[in-house]
């Protein structure tokens, strides 16, 4: 191991401090006994208990999970279909326009997406609630799914599909039995991305949410305006824990399967 130089050590410390110090503070204060967020009064898990008894937060969390689950599932189906058409349909009139339009929402300011959706829902007289949030989230997250899936499809060996056709599959069967299982990791990754995007979206959700349904980010945001409560700290700590566990688990699984595949390939070459 090379020893850290003075310069590297300093920049590393500052860099990580910049990234993680706020979160560390938040986690520490979530275990604060005091009702005042900025005054330390000893260790306690009191606010976690309070949180679990707070119906409003629990309702918002439940709405958020439902919205994220449904919207990411629909977005994955639509995004995969879109990616498949763009990569596979070859050259057709308006292909460039079509693929450009799929990616455009990625760079569109969220405020504009949210506002235009709001105008649309008012225009067609749709009551705002969980359904409209799901629609809105599906709209913007399917672009992300289609980017992830199309980057996998570009490297997909076309002859695998031809082989399936050659062996008697209809084009639909070839997709279901060969293409889909092989691109599944990308589709799952796309779903996870859409799920996380939907979980933490505040801007678009606040445009499209109604009195009947509030998501967790909106709830947190609105209660902050009345002052930061230790309950929010506890809630945020739980969210950080869930996300970290998910990311770590996912990377361990990927790493293990990559190692196993490598070992098996080496073993195959020896036989």
């Amino acid at each position: 191991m090379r020893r850290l130089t003075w310069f590297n050590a300093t920049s590393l410390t500052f860099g990580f401090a910049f990234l993680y110090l706020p979160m560390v503070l938040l986690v520490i204060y979530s275990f604060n006994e005091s009702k005042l967020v900025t005054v330390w009064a000893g260790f306690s898990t009191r606010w976690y208990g309070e949180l679990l008894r707070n119906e409003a937060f629990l309702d918002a969390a439940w709405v958020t999970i439902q919205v994220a689950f449904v919207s990411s599932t629909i977005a994955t189906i639509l995004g995969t279909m879109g990616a498949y058409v763009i990569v596979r349909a070859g050259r057709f009139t308006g292909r460039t326009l079509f693929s450009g339009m799929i990616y455009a929402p990625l760079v569109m300011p969220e405020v504009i997406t949210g506002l235009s959706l709001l105008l649309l829902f008012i225009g067609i007289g749709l009551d705002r609630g969980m359904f409209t949030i799901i629609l809105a989230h599906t709209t913007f997250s399917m672009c992300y799914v289609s980017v992830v899936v199309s980057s996998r499809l570009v490297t997909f060996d076309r002859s695998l599909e031809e082989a399936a056709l050659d062996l008697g599959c209809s084009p639909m069967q070839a997709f279901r039995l060969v293409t889909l299982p092989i691109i599944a990791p990308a589709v799952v990754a796309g779903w996870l991305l859409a799920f996380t995007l939907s979980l933490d979206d505040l801007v678009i959700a606040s445009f499209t949410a109604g009195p009947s349904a509030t998501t967790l980010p909106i709830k947190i945001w609105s209660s902050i305006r009345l002052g930061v409560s230790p309950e929010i700290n506890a809630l945020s700590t739980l969210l950080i824990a869930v996300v970290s566990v998910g990311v770590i688990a996912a990377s361990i699984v990927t790493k293990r399967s990559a190692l196993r595949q490598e070992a098996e390939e080496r073993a195959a070459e020896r036989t």
Partner: protein
Amino acid sequence: MPEKIFEPWNDPDAKPLIQFKGVTKRFGDFTAIDNQTFDIYEREFFALLGPSGCGKTTMMRMLAGFEKPTEGTILLAGQDMAPIPPNKRAVNMMFQSYALFPHLSVWENIAFGLKRDGRPKDEIAARVSEMLKLTRLEKFAKRKPHQISGGQRQRVALARSLAKAPKLLLLDEPLGALDAKLRQATQFELMDIQEKTGTTFVIVTHDQEEAMTVASRVAVMDDGKIVQADTPARIYESPNSVYVADFIGDVTIIEGTARRSGDGYEISHTEGLPALYAVSDAQLSDGQRVFLAIRPEKVEITADKPENKRNALRGKIIDIAYLGNISTYHVALPSGQIVKAQTANTRRLSRRSFTWEDEVWLSWTDTAAVLLEH
């Protein structure tokens, strides 16, 4: 009773399995296949041979149904193939990349096509184990494609494409990914399997040695056209053009003008040197420009002028390619023309008779060379 020689292409009563009738394929402005008409017979091992971009792969993809001819028709057993999609054709293909399904085991890969036909379970199992046995893969049935070696993958691909017992099997550069030793062994294995199953094979390759080894007939292609389609021996011994002679094996081409003499022609090639002589059935006019093609192994190399040979030339050795079993000498004539001569190294290298810069005589018999018009 003597065994009948397999050459249905010489039998006027034989019904071809595949007929190309005036087939043309264009991609935009580019003509990949140019008005081709030819037949392939049942039980044949037919090789499409040519450099990359000559249209051989397009030809095969039209047979599989992945491309449609722009003009003309392709008949399989008398039936027009144009309206039939790939999944309804009694044709299977072995892909260059093998295209094994990575998420399925060897067993499931081979069973894939059979399952699509909705055959009963026990029949599928029986057929798959038959295929595993044929390709000696019994031990690997449960493995995934990435868990077996390149040679084994090649055999899985073959087993999978043969499992449905197609009328016609297409092989797209099937041995391209194998190393030289394994390749040779696999060539013989392919021929063996072709004979056992009685399937018609069409193979696409750019490797002339491979085509010569496995095929009953070889079609040499250039620029969207079949230049010559014949048995390997006839392609080698009597090529119909300089292109074919040059593409298959090693050859020296001497340009000259022909003059009728006896049952052949005298070819004068260089001012001041005696004319060469070649027996030929070709109908040539006197003074016509011709090409004399001579294979290196048919050229004898001697220190002294050979007696009783009409074709004898003097030259100097400028290069020797030593290949172990044989050596190829590049001999420069006074005119600058290089003639290649090959000898078997029957003696040890240290006892070799000729070396660089030696003056030698080259000679060949009246029937050794082939006269070509273009």
